[in-house]
């Protein structure tokens, strides 16, 4: 008899599986699931609207006359007027907001002043770079971070735990852009293993693509591995102290099965949550890393746009990224609900 039933807390009307999970009532679960997903989708609508309005307000944060700032101090009054008309700044606030939202509804995120291109096409053009970087980084981070965290939890309070946690602590403390410069000096300048900057599209061969992106991706992973290892360790410690782990051991399951099946499976929920955070953080971090390695991605474009005072490009890109992050969070939320039938929803 599993230990969880010895206190009579699991009444006879609810069956429990051996790994400590209640056997779900499928029909009831489906109905609640649909309701939860629908609720999450509905909650995302105001969030998207708020992001759109916030992005619109970004331009009004500019101290002084946006048209003058964008056109530059030396611009002729005619040029300033042209910028003003082009951006619709000659209209009233609410008119501008209405036009902005109307354009967004049609998928028009505005157009860049310096690139002669719509914001959407500029972002899509640079998406493969940022996606390669963030994607590769995440695929390094998750297995390494989960493994390190689990090992530390399993060997808690031994030197292995201290070693892993010290490494993780350094990972979340050392600034990525700084270690990136050191990495370039070591691996590109001294050893000559990888190019120091630039991006090779995957269409020109997987090898060259990989060597152009591996160092930035690894460096982007350092912080994230530290973060994930710390999170995994604390989640695993929680799981390993549960009754069903003791039960699994007591009934003679091998350690491998106990940890692998019962332990990790329960920690999975935490890992899904972490993945959403990590994916957002990887895209955020790539803004900085792309600068160091001169990778022509979205982050580098945003920074160049800021320095060139191309505010419509900044605004539009932030908005597209904001929508992307909302979608990522939504997906994570839904996966989370699927993975953990116990999740309660207020």
């Amino acid at each position: 008899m599993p230990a969880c039933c010895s206190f009579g807390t699991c009444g006879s009307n609810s069956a429990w599986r051996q790994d400590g999970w209640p056997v779900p009532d499928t029909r009831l679960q489906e109905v609640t699931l649909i309701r939860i997903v629908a609720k999450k989708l509905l909650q995302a609508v105001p969030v998207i609207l708020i992001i759109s309005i916030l992005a619109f307000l970004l331009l009004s944060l500019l101290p002084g006359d946006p048209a003058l700032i964008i056109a530059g101090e030396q611009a002729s009054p005619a040029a300033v007027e042209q910028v003003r008309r082009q951006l619709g700044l000659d209209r009233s606030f609410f008119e501008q907001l209405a036009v902005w939202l109307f354009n967004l509804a049609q998928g028009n995120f505005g157009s860049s002043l310096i690139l002669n291109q719509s914001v959407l096409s500029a972002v899509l053009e640079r998406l493969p770079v940022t996606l390669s970087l963030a994607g590769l980084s995440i695929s390094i981070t998750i297995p390494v971070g989960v493994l390190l965290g689990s090992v530390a939890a399993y060997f808690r309070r031994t030197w292995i735990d201290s070693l892993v946690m010290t490494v993780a602590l350094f990972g979340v403390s050392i600034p990525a852009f700084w270690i990136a410069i050191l990495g370039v000096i070591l691996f590109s300048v001294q050893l000559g293993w990888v190019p120091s900057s630039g991006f090779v599209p995957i269409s020109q061969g997987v090898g060259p693509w990989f060597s152009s992106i591996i160092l930035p991706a690894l460096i982007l992973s350092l912080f994230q591995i530290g973060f994930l290892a710390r999170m995994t360790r604390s989640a695993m410690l929680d799981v390993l102290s549960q009754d069903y782990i003791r039960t699994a051991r007591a009934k003679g399951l091998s350690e491998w099965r106990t940890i692998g099946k019962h332990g990790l499976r329960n920690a999975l929920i935490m890992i899904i949550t972490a993945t959403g955070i990590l994916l957002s953080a990887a895209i955020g971090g790539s803004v900085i890393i792309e600068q160091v390695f001169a990778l022509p991605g979205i982050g580098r474009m945003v920074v160049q746009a800021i320095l060139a005072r191309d505010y419509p490009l900044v605004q539009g890109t932030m908005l597209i990224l904001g929508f992307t992050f909302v979608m990522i969070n939504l997906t994570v939320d839904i996966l989370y609900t699927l993975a953990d039938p116990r999740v309660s929803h207020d």
Partner: protein
Amino acid sequence: MTDVGLGSLAAAEIAAPRRHGTLRRLLRHRSFMIGFSIILLLTLAAVLAPLISPIDPSAMKVRLRFRPPSSAFWFGTDMFGRDVFTRVLYGARISLFVGFSVCVVSGLCSAIIGVIAAQFRRLDGAIMRLMDALMSFPAILLALGIAAALGPRVSSVVIALTVAYIPAGVRIVRAAALTVREMDYVQAAQVSGASSLRIVIRHILPNCFSSLLVHLTFIFAYAMLAEAALSFIGVGIQPPIASWGNIIAEGRDYATEAWWVMLFPGIAISLAALSLNLLGDALGDMLDPRQKGGA
């Protein structure tokens, strides 16, 4: 009324020895002491910068450019012949100031907004959707956008990072406040006629404090790292004001020949972030057992 008074008196008596114990345990906690010592040392170095190094951090002596570390120039000199050690000291002032201000201001704002969301249930939906919207951006990207719009000033960096870190704090305070609200003693206080303000100040805020404090210690570290990153890419603190991030940016072009210019500020940031993370871990261990390892 008397009951509640006695209750809170008893609670205070019970709480006092525990608080004492916490302090003693903190002093015996190894990572707390390591973290605390490093951050104290860095703070002292920042405050006493003019006494430690009498050199002007922006005094250029082209004749002395790119001198390697020596007894005269502990961390060497940069491309303008400025003393890197002095610049790192003055950089500590900016970086610690930004980190600390962001930590304090975002803490205050999260406490206020979080309590409002928890107390005035009708505003909760609107507030939390706004927080969701802000939180859907990675903090660094949101700060980048705001700092860019506000212009390159120290205050813009503080405002940008504060806004970026408020939502996470609001979530923590709101969650804690919602739990405390349901406690019997709060309900008892409510029934006996205590005002909402009194309940918030006497019961809800003290109970949110430890989770918030642990969280803010990590925010201090994140804010410093983020300030360095923003200054590094040219959107944060602008030269000639020295910040650890912009010293690294300036030293980057000469990293192979004059490695010392970018090396030492990087070590300084890492040490500061490391010590704050250690502090956060230790405080988490002590004050808030639920929040292990922190994040």
